[in-house]
């Protein structure tokens, strides 16, 4: 009960995170091909290393570096279907929220300041609550960061946990280099400040790097770095953050708050080692901004609280809740969260997908050119038709993707592309230029709805 009382705030936030995250249906286009890949590996008892889903790169070797993540998601799905996946997502978000809440008070921020900042960070991060292996990176980042702060505060046990976590992370998702980067930042700080824990930190760093190679399917640190420096901009999550959109706005608030706190109160070497590279990473692509926001959370919460006290020096601090009351409240929130699991959605939200074309697709034949975002859905729902492209990205980069865009955007060689791949059917949004042109050219409409059109070569 003591532990619960001491951690009532993180537990309460974890419960709230679970309730929010498990309450909505999956809808990410990549979930489907991850599940299909996981199922293939479970069925064949081997790691999927060559393409089996597409017509364009069929049989070619590729890696997305997420074999274990895909298998875990598939096992969860096989055990609990879509509701199981939603509950699992809720659990991972709850873990992230728990450690984020702990992080938010690392700088000594009072509860109310920490709560305000961490709620903003969690609201922002909703865009990353996806049923993809990337959610493991979302969850593990605050875990490793909190462990490192614990180690900085003197806990050797926290350091021992990190290398195994990096090993797990490297096999779950390709985002693990950022975990190693966190260890590196703390190690450099210890080195610069000649902290006594420098040797354990160096050992942790070395062990983490070595164990990260124990991954049968990695695309490596170089692959991750290359991806960060040259993000494929046509994918929305790889676009730079737009501060006029909700998630970009919250990111901008954290950037401004971090700079504001730094101008008012300065910072430490560690703040610079963490925030500077993560801010660059966040500016490079929307999908990376969570790392900066999470790392900035303790800094902003503590700085905001100090600023408030400076502006209102005589403000009365909130009286802390009695430990027993805090524990009871946390338990009640947990009970509520568990009860909310009953309402986890039992079916995915497929309104954005061409469900009305599935029957026609099954009876069609020949090479299908499909909308990029629908590739995963088709792999899962119409496995008998190979896709042209899908969200796996790397197998198609760059030549197939270039051909795809040339065709769909009606560039001068669009007819050559259709001929090159002998495209017989096209499944696109009706607003796409190629769909308009092919209709004009007399291709047959096999199925259509408000958001899709399936055309066949006459």
């Amino acid at each position: 009960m003591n532990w619960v009382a001491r951690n009532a705030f993180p537990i309460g936030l974890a419960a709230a995170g679970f309730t929010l995250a498990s309450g909505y249906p999956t809808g990410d286009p990549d979930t489907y091909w991850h599940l299909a890949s996981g199922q293939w590996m479970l069925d064949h008892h081997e790691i999927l290393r060559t393409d089996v889903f597409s017509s364009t790169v069929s049989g070619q070797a590729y890696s997305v570096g997420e074999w274990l993540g895909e298998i875990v998601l598939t096992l969860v799905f096989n055990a609990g279907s879509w509701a199981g996946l939603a509950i699992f997502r809720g659990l991972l978000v709850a873990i992230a929220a728990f450690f984020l809440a702990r992080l938010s008070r690392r700088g000594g921020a009072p509860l109310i300041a920490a709560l305000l900042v961490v709620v903003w960070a969690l609201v922002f991060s909703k865009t990353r609550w996806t049923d993809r292996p990337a959610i493991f990176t979302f969850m593990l980042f605050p875990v490793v960061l909190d462990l490192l702060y614990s180690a900085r505060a003197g806990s050797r046990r926290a350091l021992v946990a990190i290398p195994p976590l990096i090993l797990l992370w490297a096999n779950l998702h390709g985002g693990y280099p950022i975990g190693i980067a966190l260890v590196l930042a703390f190690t450099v700080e210890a080195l610069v400040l000649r902290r006594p824990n420098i040797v354990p930190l160096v050992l942790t760093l070395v062990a983490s790097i070595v164990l990260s190679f124990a991954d049968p399917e990695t695309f490596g640190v170089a692959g991750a770095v290359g991806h960060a420096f040259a993000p494929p901009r046509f994918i929305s999550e790889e676009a730079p953050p737009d501060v006029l959109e909700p998630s970009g706005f919250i990111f901008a608030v954290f950037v401004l708050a971090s700079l504001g706190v730094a101008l008012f109160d300065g910072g430490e070497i560690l703040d610079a080692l963490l925030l500077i590279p993560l801010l660059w990473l966040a500016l490079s692509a929307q999908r990376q901004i969570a790392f900066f926001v999470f790392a900035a959370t303790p800094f902003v919460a503590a700085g905001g609280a100090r600023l408030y006290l400076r502006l209102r020096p005589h403000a009365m601090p909130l009286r802390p809740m009695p430990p027993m009351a805090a524990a009871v409240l946390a338990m009640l929130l947990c009970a509520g969260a568990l009860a909310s699991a009953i309402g986890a959605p039992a079916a995915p939200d497929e309104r954005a997908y061409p469900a009305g074309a599935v029957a026609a697709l099954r009876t069609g034949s020949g090479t299908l050119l499909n909308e990029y975002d629908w590739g995963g859905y088709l792999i899962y729902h119409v496995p008998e038709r190979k896709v042209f492209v899908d969200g796996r990205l790397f197998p198609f980069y760059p030549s197939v993707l270039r051909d795809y865009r040339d065709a769909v955007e009606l560039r001068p060689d669009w007819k050559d592309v259709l001929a090159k791949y002998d495209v017989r059917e096209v499944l696109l949004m009706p607003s796409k230029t190629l769909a308009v042109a092919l209709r004009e050219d007399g291709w047959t409409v096999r199925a259509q709805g408000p958001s899709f059109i399936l055309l066949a070569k006459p």
Partner: protein
Amino acid sequence: MVPIAIGAAFGAASTQLAVGDSDVFWHLVVGRDVLRGLIAVPDALSWTVAGQPTSSDQWLGQALWALAFGAGEWRGVVALRALAIALLVGVVVYATLRERPTRPLGAVLAVLPAIALSRFVWTERPELFGFVCFALLIVLLRAARSGSDRALYWIPPLILVWANLHGSFALGVGLTALVAIEGAIAQPRRRRIYVVAAIGSVIATLLTPASVGAWTAPGFHLLHPPREIQEWSVPDVTTLPGAIFAVVLLSTLLVALLSRARAPREAVLLLPVLAISLIATRQMPLFAIAAAPYLAAYGADALAHVASIIGLDLPALAAPTRPPGRRADAIAFVIAAVLLAVAARVGVSSPDLGGFPTAALPSLRPGPGLLNQYDWGGYLIWAAPATPVFVDGRLIPYLNGVLDDYTTVLGVHPGWRDVIARRDIRQILVRPSDPVAVRARDLGWPIRASSDTFVLIDVPNERAAGP
């Protein structure tokens, strides 16, 4: 002396840069009208919004460019651009030197990213004057906070000129208001003068031909940037300007984190400008300009702090030098003026039209009916006045449906033929890679003229409505 010298050097160097920004042409045409006394006359440059009211928010800037052109044709434009660039760079350098008057090298290093980023706005447009005004405002606001009442008095006249030069004046008014609030709290004895400066600035913005209407364009652009236009796109660190912006932002955060001296008052200037700069590519130089004096003032301290932490002995910098006197400034000013005059004389004397459809001009039909590439609208207004345009860089007049129709036809989106029929589009002048050009070739529409840059298509009336 140093600001004048550096400003003149960059101004002189800029005379070798190509002239021919896609918007310069329509600014010159509008400026020519302004010089004839025709301000905000109903539109006569396009056929899609012909007769509708136009904006006058840049009338003075446009008039200046037209005056320069009238005085020396393209050499005049290049000379004015060089002068504005010299002023911009000189003021930014001056702002940083004010912070470190005896350490010019450090100040110049701090200002380099701002100069590099400002390169992307060295265009022949009123926007360049807006950046000059912004840089001047930063100097005045910093001087005012240091205790100069005179600097505060100069702000309303600056805003008055700015509001007539370019729509970016709104940022200046906002910053002035914030600094005035902060100053009034921090320095109660100067409260009245801060209030006067802030209210005077707001009133100054009303002394334009558009009066209150001058505020509509900045507000619209700020919250609804047209992302499809390159300069209004989201800042991207994988591009050169985005990378420089990131360097400035990260340097500022780094200095703020590691400097031992606290600078809470800098937040009043830096945070709002950063918020604006994060919105769009074209606004990134604003933060670099605002941050340069801060970096100059606190960068060395942050560096020294880090060095002391890691036990590094930094080499002693040169002893403080005596600032040069007024005579040196006067000599530098004369040399700079001569340098700029000579550079303008030997600089580029004609626009670079390589990216424009020059060879299509003889084949354009006079009168309404042309759908043109957005980026070429200004050039056509200038070079083919008998053929009004469909759209051009003025943007706002076309937001009421015209731009949507343009996008529909250019991208061959559903209903593109209906738009052609409804608008009675008779010719299409676009890039060969644009979907409508590709489609028109597929359909066998007559190509009136073409090159690697453009294709001019005649629209067959009987087929426009489609199958």
